Protein backbone atom coordinates (compact mmCIF):
# COMPACT_ATOMS: atom_id res chain seq x y z
CA UNK A 1 0.00 0.00 0.00
CA UNK A 2 1.11 3.56 -0.60
CA UNK A 3 -0.01 7.05 0.30
CA UNK A 4 0.69 9.92 -2.08
CA UNK A 5 1.10 13.35 -0.48
CA UNK A 6 2.65 16.67 -1.37
CA UNK A 7 5.18 18.80 0.41
CA UNK A 8 2.70 21.47 1.53
CA UNK A 9 0.48 18.85 3.18
CA UNK A 10 3.39 17.32 5.07
CA UNK A 11 4.46 20.82 6.06
CA UNK A 12 1.00 21.51 7.49
CA UNK A 13 1.08 18.29 9.53
CA UNK A 14 4.59 18.99 10.85
CA UNK A 15 3.63 22.56 11.75
CA UNK A 16 0.53 21.32 13.58
CA UNK A 17 2.67 18.95 15.65
CA UNK A 18 5.11 21.74 16.52
CA UNK A 19 2.24 24.10 17.45
CA UNK A 20 0.69 21.72 19.97
CA UNK A 21 4.02 20.43 21.38
CA UNK A 22 4.43 19.04 24.04
CA UNK A 23 0.90 17.78 23.50
CA UNK A 24 -0.20 15.55 20.64
CA UNK A 25 -1.87 17.02 17.58
CA UNK A 26 -4.35 15.09 15.47
CA UNK A 27 -6.40 15.36 12.33
CA UNK A 28 -8.01 13.57 9.43
CA UNK A 29 -6.59 12.92 5.99
CA UNK A 30 -9.09 13.67 3.21
CA UNK A 31 -8.51 12.24 -0.20
CA UNK A 32 -9.30 9.41 -2.56
CA UNK A 33 -8.95 5.66 -2.55
CA UNK A 34 -7.41 4.62 -5.87
CA UNK A 35 -8.66 1.46 -7.64
CA UNK A 36 -5.40 -0.37 -6.83
CA UNK A 37 -5.83 0.25 -3.10
CA UNK A 38 -3.38 3.16 -2.92
CA UNK A 39 -4.50 6.46 -1.44
CA UNK A 40 -3.98 10.06 -2.49
CA UNK A 41 -4.14 12.86 0.05
CA UNK A 42 -5.97 15.99 -1.13
CA UNK A 43 -6.60 17.93 2.08
CA UNK A 44 -5.33 17.96 5.66
CA UNK A 45 -8.17 18.43 8.16
CA UNK A 46 -6.81 19.43 11.60
CA UNK A 47 -8.91 18.43 14.61
CA UNK A 48 -8.59 19.69 18.16
CA UNK A 49 -7.27 16.99 20.47
CA UNK A 50 -10.22 16.36 22.82
CA UNK A 51 -8.63 13.49 24.75
CA UNK A 52 -9.88 14.79 28.12
CA UNK A 53 -13.36 13.75 27.00
CA UNK A 54 -12.26 10.18 26.24
CA UNK A 55 -13.93 8.77 29.33
CA UNK A 56 -17.34 9.20 27.73
CA UNK A 57 -16.24 6.70 25.09
CA UNK A 58 -14.63 4.29 27.53
CA UNK A 59 -11.17 5.19 26.26
CA UNK A 60 -9.75 7.21 29.19
CA UNK A 61 -6.75 5.57 30.85
CA UNK A 62 -5.33 8.29 33.08
CA UNK A 63 -2.84 9.56 30.49
CA UNK A 64 -2.84 13.18 29.29
CA UNK A 65 -2.69 14.87 25.92
CA UNK A 66 1.11 14.57 26.00
CA UNK A 67 0.61 10.90 25.16
CA UNK A 68 -2.92 10.57 23.81
CA UNK A 69 -5.29 12.07 21.26
CA UNK A 70 -8.96 11.64 20.48
CA UNK A 71 -11.04 12.51 17.45
CA UNK A 72 -14.62 12.17 18.65
CA UNK A 73 -17.33 10.67 16.43
CA UNK A 74 -18.84 14.17 16.12
CA UNK A 75 -15.51 15.59 14.93
CA UNK A 76 -15.17 12.64 12.58
CA UNK A 77 -18.65 13.30 11.17
CA UNK A 78 -17.74 16.96 10.63
CA UNK A 79 -14.58 15.89 8.79
CA UNK A 80 -16.56 13.45 6.71
CA UNK A 81 -19.03 16.18 5.74
CA UNK A 82 -16.12 18.43 4.74
CA UNK A 83 -14.66 15.60 2.67
CA UNK A 84 -17.94 14.91 0.88
CA UNK A 85 -18.39 18.62 0.11
CA UNK A 86 -15.06 18.44 -1.74
CA UNK A 87 -15.83 15.13 -3.45
CA UNK A 88 -13.37 13.36 -1.15
CA UNK A 89 -13.41 10.71 1.57
CA UNK A 90 -11.66 10.26 4.89
CA UNK A 91 -8.65 8.11 3.94
CA UNK A 92 -6.80 8.19 7.22
CA UNK A 93 -5.64 10.13 10.21
CA UNK A 94 -2.49 11.79 11.52
CA UNK A 95 -1.08 12.53 14.95
CA UNK A 96 2.18 13.52 16.60
CA UNK A 97 4.39 11.67 19.07
CA UNK A 98 6.05 14.38 21.20
CA UNK A 99 9.61 13.33 22.11
CA UNK A 100 8.89 9.81 20.92
CA UNK A 101 9.67 7.93 17.70
CA UNK A 102 7.28 7.97 14.73
CA UNK A 103 6.24 4.37 15.30
CA UNK A 104 2.74 3.19 16.19
CA UNK A 105 2.29 2.10 19.78
CA UNK A 106 0.27 -0.76 21.17
CA UNK A 107 -2.32 1.86 22.12
CA UNK A 108 -2.43 3.07 18.51
CA UNK A 109 -2.83 -0.49 17.28
CA UNK A 110 -5.52 -1.39 19.79
CA UNK A 111 -7.66 1.51 18.64
CA UNK A 112 -6.98 1.40 14.91
CA UNK A 113 -9.33 0.99 11.98
CA UNK A 114 -8.36 -1.08 8.95
CA UNK A 115 -7.65 0.46 5.53
CA UNK A 116 -6.97 3.97 6.89
CA UNK A 117 -3.50 5.49 6.77
CA UNK A 118 -2.06 6.28 10.20
CA UNK A 119 0.45 9.02 9.63
CA UNK A 120 2.70 9.75 12.62
CA UNK A 121 5.11 12.65 13.01
CA UNK A 122 7.72 12.58 15.72
CA UNK A 123 8.28 15.99 17.36
CA UNK A 124 11.60 16.19 19.19
CA UNK A 125 12.14 19.17 21.52
CA UNK A 126 9.46 21.09 19.64
CA UNK A 127 10.87 20.36 16.17
CA UNK A 128 9.12 17.99 13.75
CA UNK A 129 11.40 15.09 12.85
CA UNK A 130 10.60 11.70 11.28
CA UNK A 131 7.24 11.14 9.62
CA UNK A 132 5.96 7.66 8.81
CA UNK A 133 2.69 6.08 7.70
CA UNK A 134 1.13 2.77 8.69
CA UNK A 135 -1.90 0.73 7.84
CA UNK A 136 -3.59 -2.09 9.73
CA UNK A 137 -3.61 -5.54 8.10
CA UNK A 138 -6.29 -8.24 8.38
CA UNK A 139 -4.62 -9.59 11.53
CA UNK A 140 -4.89 -6.13 13.13
CA UNK A 141 -1.12 -5.61 12.91
CA UNK A 142 0.36 -2.34 11.61
CA UNK A 143 2.32 -2.54 8.38
CA UNK A 144 4.62 0.21 7.13
CA UNK A 145 3.09 2.22 4.29
CA UNK A 146 5.21 3.90 1.62
CA UNK A 147 4.72 7.67 1.46
CA UNK A 148 5.17 9.06 -2.06
CA UNK A 149 5.87 12.75 -1.97
CA UNK A 150 5.03 14.81 -5.04
CA UNK A 151 5.93 18.42 -5.67
CA UNK A 152 2.55 19.45 -7.10
CA UNK A 153 0.25 21.41 -4.80
Amino acid at each position, binding site marked *: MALTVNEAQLGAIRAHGERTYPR*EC*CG*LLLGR*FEPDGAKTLHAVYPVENT*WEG*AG*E*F*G*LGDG*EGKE*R*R*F*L*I*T*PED*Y*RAGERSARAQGL*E*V*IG*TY*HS*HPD*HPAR*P*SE*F*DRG*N*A*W*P*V*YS*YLIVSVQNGQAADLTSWTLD*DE*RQFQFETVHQTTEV
Partner: protein
Amino acid sequence: MAVKVLIPAPLRRYTSNQESLELEGGSVGEILDDLTGRYGELKKHLYGEDGKLRNFVNIYVNDEDIRHLQQQGTVVQPTDVISIVPSIAGGF
Protein backbone atom coordinates in the same frame (compact mmCIF):
# COMPACT_ATOMS: atom_id res chain seq x y z
CA MET B 1 -37.68 -5.81 9.04
CA ALA B 2 -34.93 -4.25 6.93
CA VAL B 3 -33.10 -1.15 8.13
CA LYS B 4 -30.53 0.88 6.23
CA VAL B 5 -26.99 0.77 7.65
CA LEU B 6 -24.23 3.10 6.44
CA ILE B 7 -20.80 1.47 6.30
CA PRO B 8 -17.71 3.67 6.85
CA ALA B 9 -14.93 3.50 4.26
CA PRO B 10 -12.51 1.37 6.35
CA LEU B 11 -15.07 -1.42 6.62
CA ARG B 12 -16.27 -1.48 3.01
CA ARG B 13 -13.61 -3.91 1.90
CA TYR B 14 -15.50 -6.43 4.02
CA THR B 15 -18.91 -5.59 2.52
CA SER B 16 -18.01 -5.97 -1.17
CA ASN B 17 -17.44 -2.19 -1.30
CA GLN B 18 -21.08 -1.45 -0.52
CA GLU B 19 -21.56 1.90 1.22
CA SER B 20 -24.93 0.97 2.64
CA LEU B 21 -26.72 -2.27 3.39
CA GLU B 22 -30.30 -3.26 4.16
CA LEU B 23 -30.06 -5.45 7.26
CA GLU B 24 -32.65 -7.35 9.25
CA GLY B 25 -33.48 -6.75 12.89
CA GLY B 26 -35.71 -4.91 15.32
CA SER B 27 -32.92 -3.54 17.50
CA VAL B 28 -29.42 -2.22 16.99
CA GLY B 29 -27.99 -5.43 18.46
CA GLU B 30 -29.97 -7.61 16.06
CA ILE B 31 -28.92 -5.48 13.11
CA LEU B 32 -25.24 -5.80 14.10
CA ASP B 33 -25.67 -9.56 14.49
CA ASP B 34 -27.07 -9.71 10.97
CA LEU B 35 -24.12 -7.61 9.72
CA THR B 36 -21.43 -9.81 11.29
CA GLY B 37 -23.37 -12.96 10.31
CA ARG B 38 -23.23 -11.94 6.66
CA TYR B 39 -19.74 -10.46 6.73
CA GLY B 40 -17.79 -12.44 9.30
CA GLU B 41 -14.43 -10.75 8.61
CA LEU B 42 -15.88 -7.50 9.92
CA LYS B 43 -16.37 -8.88 13.38
CA LYS B 44 -12.82 -8.54 14.71
CA HIS B 45 -12.77 -4.85 13.84
CA LEU B 46 -16.11 -4.11 15.54
CA TYR B 47 -15.80 -6.37 18.59
CA GLY B 48 -12.89 -6.93 20.96
CA GLU B 49 -11.75 -10.32 22.23
CA ASP B 50 -14.12 -9.84 25.18
CA GLY B 51 -17.04 -9.92 22.75
CA LYS B 52 -17.95 -6.29 23.45
CA LEU B 53 -18.26 -3.57 20.85
CA ARG B 54 -14.88 -1.82 20.68
CA ASN B 55 -14.79 1.56 22.40
CA PHE B 56 -13.83 3.43 19.23
CA VAL B 57 -16.84 2.02 17.35
CA ASN B 58 -19.82 4.32 17.64
CA ILE B 59 -23.27 3.40 16.47
CA TYR B 60 -25.72 6.13 15.60
CA VAL B 61 -29.44 5.79 14.99
CA ASN B 62 -30.12 8.75 12.74
CA ASP B 63 -28.19 11.53 14.54
CA GLU B 64 -28.15 10.00 18.02
CA ASP B 65 -25.32 7.96 19.57
CA ILE B 66 -26.81 4.74 21.01
CA ARG B 67 -24.87 5.46 24.24
CA HIS B 68 -27.53 8.14 24.79
CA LEU B 69 -30.36 5.76 23.84
CA GLN B 70 -30.73 2.14 24.98
CA GLN B 71 -27.34 0.99 23.70
CA GLN B 72 -27.64 -2.13 21.55
CA GLY B 73 -31.17 -2.66 22.84
CA THR B 74 -32.27 0.49 21.02
CA VAL B 75 -35.37 -0.35 18.98
CA VAL B 76 -35.21 0.63 15.32
CA GLN B 77 -37.89 1.38 12.73
CA PRO B 78 -37.68 0.78 8.96
CA THR B 79 -37.37 4.53 8.44
CA ASP B 80 -34.29 4.81 10.69
CA VAL B 81 -30.77 4.98 9.33
CA ILE B 82 -28.00 3.36 11.35
CA SER B 83 -24.45 4.65 10.95
CA ILE B 84 -21.19 3.10 12.13
CA VAL B 85 -19.07 6.12 13.01
CA PRO B 86 -15.37 5.88 13.91
CA SER B 87 -13.81 7.74 16.75
CA ILE B 88 -10.05 7.74 16.45
CA ALA B 89 -7.71 7.56 19.40
CA GLY B 90 -4.01 6.91 19.71
CA GLY B 91 -0.77 8.01 21.24
CA PHE B 92 2.16 6.14 22.71
